[in-house]
């Protein structure tokens, strides 16, 4: 279960070495070793509670392993779509999407705003002055996905991003998102095997019983 870690001088390594993680008495990951090949799409599947979210959070540095080591290359810049939307309720969709790029101003800001509007239109989201608290659950989900894919990140983590979306919206969103993520390292967790059709030659992983293995 290994893959290359360096692309030229850029270090995009992402790996777990003998990682264990428990919450209280519940052991979620047990001696997990995995290397995620850079600039490829990795689809992680497994039943609910199997540790997919924990694995992403460990890689993102949001959790510390009880034992073992999480290796992140020095050039890894992450973006993530969490299971919850995690949006700033009082800000507009565009302001939320732009949040990972807080320093934009002048012409660069105008260019990015135009890009945001294009992205939102492609994902069937209307651009207006409403704060996101006034948006529906599906609309908020799309804002969270766009925030992740439009971030200046080379490694994107998606934690069941399409959950709860209807088929037509999923098709529209993925038609826009799939080409954008194609040349970045992507870790995509899902229950739904149908998600695989959106990716070109993804690497499949199975997360179950505290173990992670490539299929």
């Amino acid at each position: 279960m290994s893959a290359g870690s360096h692309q030229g001088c850029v270090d995009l390594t992402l790996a777990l070495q003998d990682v264990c993680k428990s919450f209280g008495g519940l052991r979620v990951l047990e001696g997990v070793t995995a290397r995620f090949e850079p600039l490829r799409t990795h689809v992680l599947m497994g039943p609910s509670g199997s540790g997919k979210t924990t694995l992403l959070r460990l890689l993102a540095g949001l959790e510390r392993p009880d034992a073992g080591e999480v290796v992140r290359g020095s050039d890894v810049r992450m973006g993530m779509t969490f299971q919850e939307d995690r949006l700033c309720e009082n800000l507009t969709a565009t302001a939320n999407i732009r949040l990972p790029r807080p320093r934009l101003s002048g012409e660069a800001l105008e260019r990015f705003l135009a890009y945001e509007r294009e992205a939102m239109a492609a994902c069937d989201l209307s651009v207006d002055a409403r704060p996101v608290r006034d948006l529906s659950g599906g609309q908020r989900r799309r804002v969270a996905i766009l925030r992740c894919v439009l971030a200046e990140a080379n490694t994107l983590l998606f934690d069941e991003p399409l959950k709860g979306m209807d088929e037509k919206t999923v098709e529209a969103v993925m038609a826009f998102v799939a080409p954008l993520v194609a040349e970045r390292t992507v870790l995509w967790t899902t229950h739904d095997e149908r998600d695989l059709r959106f990716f070109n030659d993804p690497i499949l992983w199975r997360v179950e019983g505290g173990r992670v293995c490539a299929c």
Partner: protein
Amino acid sequence: MAGPSNKNAEKGGRLRTWAVRLVCVLFWLAVWGLAARAIHARIILVGPLEVLARLGNLAVTGEFWASIAISLGRVAVGYVSAVVLGVALAAFASRFSLVRELLAPLMGALKATPVASFVILVLLWVSSRHLSIVIALIMALPIVYTNVLEGIRQTDAGLLEMCDLFDVRGWDRVRLVYASEVLPYFRAAVTLALGLSWKAGIAAEVIGLPDFTIGEHLYDAKVYLDTPDLFAWTLAVIVVSVALEALITRVMGWAMGRWEARP
């Protein structure tokens, strides 16, 4: 989508609400007028029409407006200082638990101590001209501090984690996440503190008696048993208070609307 019929219904509902409020106010004015007639003793109670007439007489004098401007200006200085200081202290307290622990008894004491005690104490330290500034500050500070600190502490941990992941830090995090989360708490605090500062500032003037202030006129009305003057100045205080609260609510609503609606 909200159509014209919905907007008309909303407008009609608002008009009805205002009509009900107006009727209630007129009812109590009528009760007041009837009570004044029944008592028939100006020194104890004057009717609303006489109070309005007296206020009209006062309103054409320069001293009336000068007194309101001086009282309002001093309370405003204390209030604005409290807002700035309260926000700064809350930011420090949220960052450093030692600051929070140190300030907790002080803020508790400020909230619990009667305003009259502060007025007498502060009069020993500063001239009566500056009394209402200090009292307005003392009244507003714990409210702003407590609310803003609570807003910061209630900021969604998930949002902060999201900021960590996207490497949004420092001032960017403050203006994009904390400001957005704390703004509703701040809005409630400044609206509440404004009324309290204004009333406490006037009360301090009644004790400290600085020249050309509303408090001095209220004191004079008491000394000369001039009940119409007492009611007229009180009405002026209420009108200023309501106007200030409406102004600050509008300004905050406008500012929040602009903040939320920016692309």
